[in-house]
């Protein structure tokens, strides 16, 4: 999993550095945001001179999925320590969340923290290296395929049972249709709509049968 974080960290660090942000911000942003897409969006909006309110709105919309991941994670047994409760959500990302899902319910938060810490370290280090080597790194031509490859085993492990297979199929089709929605809201809308459609179809099927 760190392979994917490394590739994206290098590419994101290089892209952020080329946006003209001050060096201190450039090095702090991977830690302060800990959101690759959010970081790229901020760098682009900064380069365009967008006002703060629109940057804030864009970042909130782009990161709405984290709200959902955190809501799902809040149903898992949470650590008793207040400090761990405060620190753990910082490490929620697609990868750490998906990895934690593979674990037994009681171990998920601990796993989220462990995997998250490893991925975060990789992310921050590679972002800084990417920033430093911005002029020398070739652009990643097929970066779009890396998340799907790296998270393929987790996705395939999750797609089990009729309902989940149906949700995956509908989410894929809707994801293609809604891809162009602004602020990267397409996947979020596609995932939620797929669940609504499949649950409604399932309820109708049960009634008819």
């Amino acid at each position, binding site marked *: 999993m760190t*392979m*994917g974080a490394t590739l994206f960290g290098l590419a994101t660090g290089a892209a952020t550095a080329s946006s003209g942000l*001050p060096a201190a911000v450039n090095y*702090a*942003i991977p830690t302060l*945001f*800990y*959101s690759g897409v959010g970081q790229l969006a901020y760098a682009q909006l900064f380069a365009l001179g967008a006002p*703060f309110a629109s*940057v*804030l709105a864009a*970042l*909130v919309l782009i*990161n709405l*999925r984290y*709200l*959902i991941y*955190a809501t*799902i*994670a*809040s*149903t898992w047994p949470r650590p008793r320590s207040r400090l761990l*409760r*405060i620190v753990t*959500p*910082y490490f*929620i990302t*697609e990868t750490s969340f*998906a990895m934690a899902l593979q674990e037994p319910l009681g171990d998920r938060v601990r796993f989220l923290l462990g995997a998250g810490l490893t991925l975060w370290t990789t992310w921050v280090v590679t972002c800084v290296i990417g920033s430093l080597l911005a002029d020398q790194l070739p652009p*990643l*031509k*097929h970066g*779009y*395929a*890396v*998340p*799907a*490859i*790296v*998270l*393929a*085993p987790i*996705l*395939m*492990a999750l*797609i089990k049972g009729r*309902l989940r297979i149906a*949700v*995956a199929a509908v*989410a*894929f089709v*809707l*994801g*293609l249709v809604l891809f162009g929605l602004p602020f990267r809201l397409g*996947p*979020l809308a596609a*995932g*939620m709509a*797929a*669940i609504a459609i499949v649950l409604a179809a399932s309820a109708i099927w049960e009634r008819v049968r």
Partner: protein
Amino acid sequence: MIEFAAVLGLGLVLYAMKALPFVFGKVPQSRLGNQVLDLLPVGLLTALLLPPALIGAVQDPAVEALLAIGAVVAALGISALTGQAALSIAVGLIILAIAETI
């Protein structure tokens, strides 16, 4: 300094979006709610990972697009058939690396 303060403020907002549900969240338990929470990861991850890979590949030249799609399909297929996570990621990334060199 202003840019740093802006990034710090935005970072706090992003953290709050993750922390508030986790620290204080009380999710009402119901059959429908549990079903939705069970299906959300599959729906979100599928929509987040696969369509961008396909759409990104379609915009590339034919050979590179085939290799990029092949890399994703190989990773998914090997995962489904063998359950070997490391093998599926390695094969997928090797095929993608070939596409990068073209």
